[in-house]
């Protein structure tokens, strides 16, 4: 099993108030099935964390435990310094959850619902986090100003998704959970959404935990990537750190004498050095692309699954 340890666990200790998520040895068991087998990770204030993994890896279970929607079997979990199993309403007010909506509140108008949900947060307003987010500003931020008087049942899929995001952030959360946030977004909406995530993290200091199957999106948005497979964390680090740990091939493209060349090499630096030694100034338009997150991800998950299969096989043989 390859475990890439992120900078946070090996580096300097973090001040307690900067630590927004602290998960240690989280375990979850349904009947006799272990869904989570000792998951540990942390997140500090303003960090964007992407939780990746194949279906059934335990992503949703992990998020639902952190949201306080599901009880855990074992492990020490702190979300904004509080155990989510016993977090009260004040704690709840500091969280934002973007749910995958279906057809709830269909008769409500967009602005009406956002305004109404905002009123639940006003008693939890602080100097640092004035709550709720003013409705008109929020509508503009998510791009629903034109739909503000529309009934929710009449929104398109993409507009509904934007409303989900708006509902998730109406209380100006310190920690935001995004489960598959951009499913059904067109490229422009996706770009707007990415800008919003950057703004929340950089300007407002919101910590964001997102799950996605879109690895390109994870690479663009996340400061750190945590990969979950088979109920364990198999990698934790930035996209660059992860790709360094995986012996992937880099792609090298260059032009020489008007012709375009492409070559794949495990040691790209060495290849390029030799290329220049051989041709010198004749080389132009050089591009080196390291393995993308997608390749890194596929390699890590494959290794983990092979490791588990091997483990299972040896356990089976021992049993014989």
């Amino acid at each position, binding site marked *: 099993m390859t475990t890439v340890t992120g900078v946070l666990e090996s580096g300097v200790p973090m001040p307690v108030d900067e630590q927004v998520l602290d998960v240690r040895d989280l375990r979850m068991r349904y009947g006799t099935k272990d869904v989570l087998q000792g998951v540990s990770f942390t997140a500090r204030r303003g960090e964007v964390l992407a939780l990746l993994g194949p279906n059934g890896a335990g992503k949703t279970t992990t998020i639902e435990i952190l949201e306080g*929607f*599901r009880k855990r079997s074992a492990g020490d979990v702190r979300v904004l310094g509080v155990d989510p199993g016993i977090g009260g309403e004040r704690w*709840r007010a500091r969280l934002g959850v973007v*749910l*995958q909506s*279906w057809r709830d509140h269909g008769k409500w108008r967009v602005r009406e619902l956002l305004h109404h*949900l905002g009123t639940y947060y006003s008693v939890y307003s602080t100097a640092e986090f004035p709550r709720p987010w003013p409705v008109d500003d929020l509508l503009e931020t998510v791009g629903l100003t034109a739909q503000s008087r529309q009934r929710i049942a009449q929104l398109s899929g993409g507009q509904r998704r934007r409303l989900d995001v708006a509902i998730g952030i109406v*209380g100006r959360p310190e920690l935001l959970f995004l489960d598959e946030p951009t499913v059904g977004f067109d490229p422009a909406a996706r770009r707007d959404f990415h800008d919003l995530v950057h703004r929340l993290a950089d300007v407002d200091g919101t910590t964001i935990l997102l799950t996605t199957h879109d690895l390109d999106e994870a690479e663009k948005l996340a400061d750190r990537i945590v990969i979950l497979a088979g109920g364990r964390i198999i990698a934790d680090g930035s996209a660059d750190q992860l790709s360094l740990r995986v012996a992937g091939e880099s792609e090298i493209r260059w032009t020489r004498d008007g012709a375009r060349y492409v070559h794949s090499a495990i040691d790209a630096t060495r290849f390029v050095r030799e290329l220049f030694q051989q041709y010198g100034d004749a080389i132009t338009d050089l591009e080196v692309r390291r393995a993308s997150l997608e390749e890194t991800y596929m390699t890590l998950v494959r290794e983990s699954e092979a490791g588990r299969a091997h483990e299972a096989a040896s356990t089976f043989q021992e049993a014989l």
Partner: protein
Amino acid sequence: MSSVSTAARTGLARGGIELRQTLTHAADIWQFVSPSILLLGTIFFEADATVPGTDISLGARTLPSALGMGFAFTGLMTVAMLLVVDREDGTLLRAKATPNGMSGYLVGKIVLVGGMSAIVLAIQLIPGLFIVDGLHIDAFGWFTLVWLVPLGFIATMPIGAMAGSLLDGPRNLGFLMLPLGGLVAISGIFYPITSMPGWLQAIAQLFPIYWLGLGMRSVFLPDALTTAELGHSWRLWETAGVLGVWAVLGLAIAPILLRRMAERESGSAVAARREKAMTRAV
């Protein structure tokens, strides 16, 4: 303290908004109006018949009984239906993700269902008074109304909440309609309970529908009509007693069931239900 006032404030706002939405939604209005038209039609055709042995019209006897039944029905069925639907579509999960959201949600539902009950009462009673003669209400009747209506509400709403938290999905609401319809038939709403066999009378007297009908008859009908009632009396003490027991039981058990139901709500639970509903649709 702030939680309680937030729940009250947000819940009142929520109930008010949803009541307004219901009153501006054609399909919802029809749901209110159609049973009332049926009822008013029934008493219209009963207006000429009289309760045997008296000169009171049969319609005058049916109207208050039906008002009592309507109360039990709105309290029970509407609450159960709203809970099941709101759980299925994720409204409840949204409430759970919001601080004090569950309390606000429940207060909102009480306001909504209370408002709906009042509206149904008005659209049945006011035209009804013009259709049938013989209904009157005195000071004691008003007094009875003042305690009977809230008590009936508190007695029936928690039953609806319990049913709603136990039922699996909107499709199972039908299981609730069947026993309720049976109960209405034996509860002396349309046929006097005195014409039922003793064991059916006993069953009917265990449930709030009979007592709500009886209480409403005591409010609007002359005391002479007690001849058609069990024990030849309006039995107001017993009415208060039975409804009170239901209210206490309901208020004790419903929050436990509601909490249990809410605890199980999560994104994946709603997603699973959506999957199921989509497969059914196809």
